[in-house]
């Protein structure tokens, strides 16, 4: 039997396996590969709302360089991403540490439950509630609270003042205990072997020393995972900003994803918007690669 016949008989033998794979591949070909390829192609075209595309080479990318709103959106997303990383590396981790250090198992369960609970509230509701909290006087919760405390000079139009709108956006979600991140840290802490914890105790390590010398190095994998997840999520998720400020006032809180959306659906510049999508793709691939490179070395197991 020659190799071709061999392959043919194998193919015939496993035709039903391909049938099982067919639904998955049909879905990803039609709704993932095709649109992704189309995005890269149309980034080099002028593509209007009627769907007519003309090849323009690198024109869209050149325009991006001089588009001051796009440049401002890059600066904003840089700040937002840095803040998001700081938040996810610190606050859920602290919450997980505190819960883990509780003596009672039931206490651990209930604090975990309560801190995870917000996950059931749809994202749009969380955003709308925070928009209300940061709303104008007299009904905005934050301003009402400052009124109550007699700190009227601290009151602001939090989301409407171009000078502080971006800072206000960063404050949303305080105290920033992301439920999934906390569960991931908690699982990481649970996986630290009891022997290591015992040993650090017998060595006379204080809880602070144990956290710094044992827990944090052993949570390295979790940190790395969350850095990658958070980077990818933050760069592409602009629904929250759309609801919160719509990029305003002016373009004080504009982010690339939202600008892409507005260029496409408000200005009918679908090719230009596709080019923004391609820039985001490249940025994400680059950041993921850098993360992997930087964080590869120090994998720790005791």
């Amino acid at each position, binding site marked *: 039997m020659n190799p071709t016949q061999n392959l043919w008989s*194998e*193919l015939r033998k496993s035709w039903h396996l391909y049938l099982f794979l067919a639904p998955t591949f049909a*879905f990803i070909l039609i709704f993932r590969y095709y649109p992704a390829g189309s995005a890269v192609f149309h980034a080099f075209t002028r593509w209007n709302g009627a769907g007519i595309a003309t090849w323009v080479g690198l024109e869209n990318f050149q325009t991006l360089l001089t588009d001051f709103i796009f440049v401002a959106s890059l600066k904003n997303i840089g700040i937002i991403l840095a803040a998001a990383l700081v938040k996810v590396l610190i606050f859920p981790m602290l919450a997980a540490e505190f819960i883990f250090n*509780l003596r009672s198992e039931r206490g651990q369960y209930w604090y975990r439950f309560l801190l995870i609970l917000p996950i059931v509230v749809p994202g749009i509701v969380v955003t*709308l*509630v925070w928009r209300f909290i940061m709303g104008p006087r007299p009904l905005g919760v934050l301003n009402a609270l400052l009124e109550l405390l007699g700190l009227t000079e601290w009151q602001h139009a939090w989301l409407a003042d171009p000078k502080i709108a971006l800072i206000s956006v960063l404050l949303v979600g305080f105290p920033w205990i992301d439920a999934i991140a906390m569960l*991931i840290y908690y699982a990481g802490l649970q996986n630290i072997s009891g022997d290591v914890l015992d040993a650090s105790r017998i060595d006379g390590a204080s809880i602070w020393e144990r956290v710094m010398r044992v827990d944090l190095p052993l949570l390295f994998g979790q940190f790395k995972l969350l850095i990658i997840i958070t980077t990818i999520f933050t760069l592409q998720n602009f629904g929250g900003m759309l609801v919160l400020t719509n990029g305003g006032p002016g373009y004080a809180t504009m982010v690339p994803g939202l600008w892409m959306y507005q260029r496409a659906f408000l200005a009918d510049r679908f090719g230009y918007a596709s080019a923004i999508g391609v820039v985001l793709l490249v940025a994400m691939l680059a950041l993921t690669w850098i993360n992997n490179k930087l964080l590869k070395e120090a994998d720790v197991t005791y």
Partner: protein
Amino acid sequence: MSTISTSETATALSLRPSRTRQPRHVSNFVVSVVLVLLVVLTLYPFVFMIITSTKSYSQFLHSYWIPAWPPHIVENYVAAWNQIRGYLINTIYVGVLTVVGFLFTTTLAAFVFARFRFPGKELLFGSLMILMMIPQILQLIPAFMWVRKLQLLNTYWVLILPYIAGGQAYAVFILRTFFRSLPQGLFDAARIDGARDFQTYYMVALPLSKGILATLAILRVQQVWNDLIWPLITLADDSKRTITVGLYYFQGETQTQYGAMFAGYLIASVPLFLLFLVGMKQFMAGVTSGAIKA
């Protein structure tokens, strides 16, 4: 590190039957106070939402921070329910069909990748996995143009089909790892009993993976429940809209009905809350055992 060298001694010297984390240097009291504070700060926005959802507009103005008497619960919740009922039903419909289609396709593919050898396997698996590197935002614009061409705009399918396609790579990866870990003996036994490949899938593999399926289903439903942009651009017809889009516009329509507005927010959270009450144990175990770690 010194901790390693002492760990054996530590176990040897340990007189207690080793239960590891016992005496702590920071008092439980301090830890509890911090945790209570964190819980209060985290949940307060939602508590405010619940309290406000029971007030009339004038009650909200006059007693801003505290509950008011008499409560306007029925009035506010009926008003909110009438406004968002349709959106809620749409979302549940879309969510159920998405999850069914999603689990059916991903389990089949993962099962084949986990337990069979066939020509082109590596190539096919790789071409699926590479999707994890391609962010959804890249395809937002062309996907819109594409579904418009396919005349799917303003139908439920414009949500369901892309939602099924959405998390394939990740779910197949997780499920394949799981199916691989099942003992071969179970499949052999089923084969001896005369089961064919497809029968071993739904008689052996599926029943053993309820936990992981529940976790994946919850994650998928949560994503459907939270998506704003895609339904916003593809559903112009109000009667087809899902809950996120409904709530997004709901804000604009009711100028001063804050009670009803917050009641609507709460009603929108109930289905996921129920889902989590049922699946919370599964979900926490799933996350802990690595369903979320890619």
